[in-house]
C-alpha cells in the first residue's frame, strides 16, 4: 500500500469500516511509514476531541419539558447555539440506538416524501382546523427540538431569509420593545403548504409565528374580533368594529392569534395570553407598558 492509498483509506480505517485485508495492509504500511503513522496519530486526536466536543454539547442541553424555556431565558450568546442543538439533544438516537434508527428513518422518509410531493393545492389538503395545524407545528418545535435554520434577532435579516426560501411575500413584525425578541426562523410546511416559521421570545416565553399564503384555510372554531390597544387598558374589543381584525382560538392550552395581511395569513402561537401575543402585531404600541 502506498502513502496516498493510506490517506484515502485513513478515515474508514479509524472508524473500523475498512475490510480486514485492506486494514491489515494499511497497518503494515503504517508500521514502516512514520509520516503515515503521524497522520493516524493526528486524526485519532482530532476524533477524540471531536467526540468530547459533541458529547459535551449534547449533555449540556438534554431536552425536557422546560428545556426550551430555559434555553430561551439563558444568556444571549449561548442561546442560538442551544436552540440549534436542541434537535440533537432530544433525538431518540441518543437514548435507544435501534428505536432511534427506526424513528429517525421514519421521520426522514416522511420528510423526504413530503418534499418530493411538493406543495399541494388546497383541494388536496386535509382540511384540518387551522388552529390545530399551527399548534401542532409549535408543539413539534418545542418537543422535538427542530433546528432553526437561521438565528438572528434582526427581523429584516430573518424576513429576507424566509422570503428567499419560502417564496412567500411575507414580513415579520418589527418591535423595539425589550420584552419582545426575535430568535430566528425556519422554512416549514403547514398541511403541505410552504410556510415561514419564526420563533420569538416575549417576556421570556417562546412564541411562534407561522406565515402561509391566505388560501382558503379552515378557520372554523376561531372567533373573529376587531381589537384595538388602548393605553392603560391593554387590548380591548373595538366596539365600533373599526380596528384590525383578529381570529382568536386556543388548543391544548396554547393561545392562537391569527390575522391577515397582504394576501398572507399570520398565526402566533404560545402559552402566553392573547394580549401578549397581540404584541406581535402591535409591538410598538406596547413599548411604554
Amino acid at each position, binding site marked *: *500500500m*502506498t*502513502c496516498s492509498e493510506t490517506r484515502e483509506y485513513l*478515515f*474508514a480505517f479509524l*472508524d*473500523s*469500516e475498512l475490510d480486514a*485485508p485492506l486494514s491489515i*495492509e494499511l497497518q*503494515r*504500511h503504517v508500521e*514502516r*511509514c*512514520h*509520516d503515515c503513522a*503521524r*497522520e493516524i*496519530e*493526528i*486524526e485519532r*486526536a*482530532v*476524533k*477524540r*476531541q*471531536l*467526540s*468530547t*466536543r*459533541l*458529547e459535551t454539547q*449534547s449533555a449540556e442541553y438534554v431536552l425536557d419539558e422546560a428545556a426550551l424555556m430555559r434555553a430561551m431565558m439563558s444568556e444571549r450568546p449561548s442561546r442560538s447555539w442551544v436552540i440549534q442543538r436542541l434537535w*440533537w439533544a432530544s433525538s431518540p*438516537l*441518543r437514548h435507544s*440506538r435501534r428505536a*432511534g*434508527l427506526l424513528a*429517525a*428513518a421514519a421521520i*426522514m*422518509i416522511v420528510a*423526504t416524501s413530503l418534499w418530493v410531493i411538493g406543495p399541494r393545492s388546497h383541494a388536496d389538503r386535509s382540511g384540518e382546523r387551522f388552529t390545530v395545524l399551527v399548534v401542532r407545528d409549535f408543539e413539534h418545535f418545542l418537543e422535538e427540538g427542530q433546528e432553526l435554520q437561521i438565528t438572528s434577532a434582526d427581523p429584516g435579516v430573518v424576513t429576507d431569509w424566509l422570503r428567499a426560501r419560502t417564496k412567500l411575500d411575507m414580513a415579520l413584525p418589527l418591535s423595539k420593545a425589550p420584552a419582545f425578541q426575535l430568535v430566528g426562523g425556519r422554512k416549514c410546511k403547514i398541511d403541505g403548504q410552504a410556510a415561514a416559521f419564526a420563533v420569538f421570545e416575549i417576556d421570556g416565553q417562546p412564541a411562534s409565528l407561522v406565515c402561509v399564503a391566505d388560501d382558503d384555510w379552515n378557520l372554523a372554531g376561531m372567533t373573529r374580533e376587531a381589537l384595538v390597544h388602548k393605553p392603560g387598558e391593554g387590548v380591548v374589543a373595538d366596539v365600533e368594529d373599526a380596528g384590525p381584525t383578529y381570529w382568536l382560538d386556543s388548543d391544548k392550552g396554547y393561545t392562537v392569534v391569527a390575522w391577515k395581511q397582504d394576501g398572507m395569513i399570520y398565526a402566533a402561537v404560545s402559552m402566553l395570553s392573547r394580549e401578549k401575543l397581540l404584541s406581535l402585531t402591535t409591538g410598538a404600541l406596547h413599548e411604554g407598558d
Partner: protein
Amino acid sequence: MRNITFEWHRKAQHRIKLVPIPDSELTEISPSDQSEPLCPLPTMDDECFREFLDERIVSALDALEPAFRETIMLSVSSGLNYREIAEVLGCPVGTVMSRMSRARRALRERLGVLAQSQRWVREGRS
C-alpha cells in the same frame, strides 16, 4: 577453510528460505520519510493542544454544510456505523463515506498550517 565455507553455504540454503512477496503486501514508503524526524505530537493531556484542536473543530463544524455536519455527528457522537447512518439518512453507504471523508478533511484543513509549522507533519501532507 574451503570445506568450512562450503559447509556454511550448504547449511545456509536450509536456514534461509526466500519466499516471494505478493505485490499486495508490498509497502511503498515515501522518500520524505527518510529525512529528519518529525517533532513529537503533544498528548491529549496537554490542555493547550486540546484547546487548539477544539477551536478548529468548532469553526470547522460551523462552516460545514448541514448534511456533512449531520453525518459526522451521527458517527462520532452516537457511534452509529456507516451502514446505520446510511439507513437513517436514506442514502447509499458510499455517500456516507464520502461525506465523512470530506467533513474530516475540512477539520484537518483547519489544522494544516500550524501542524506543518510545528513539524507535526511534513509539508504537503496536511
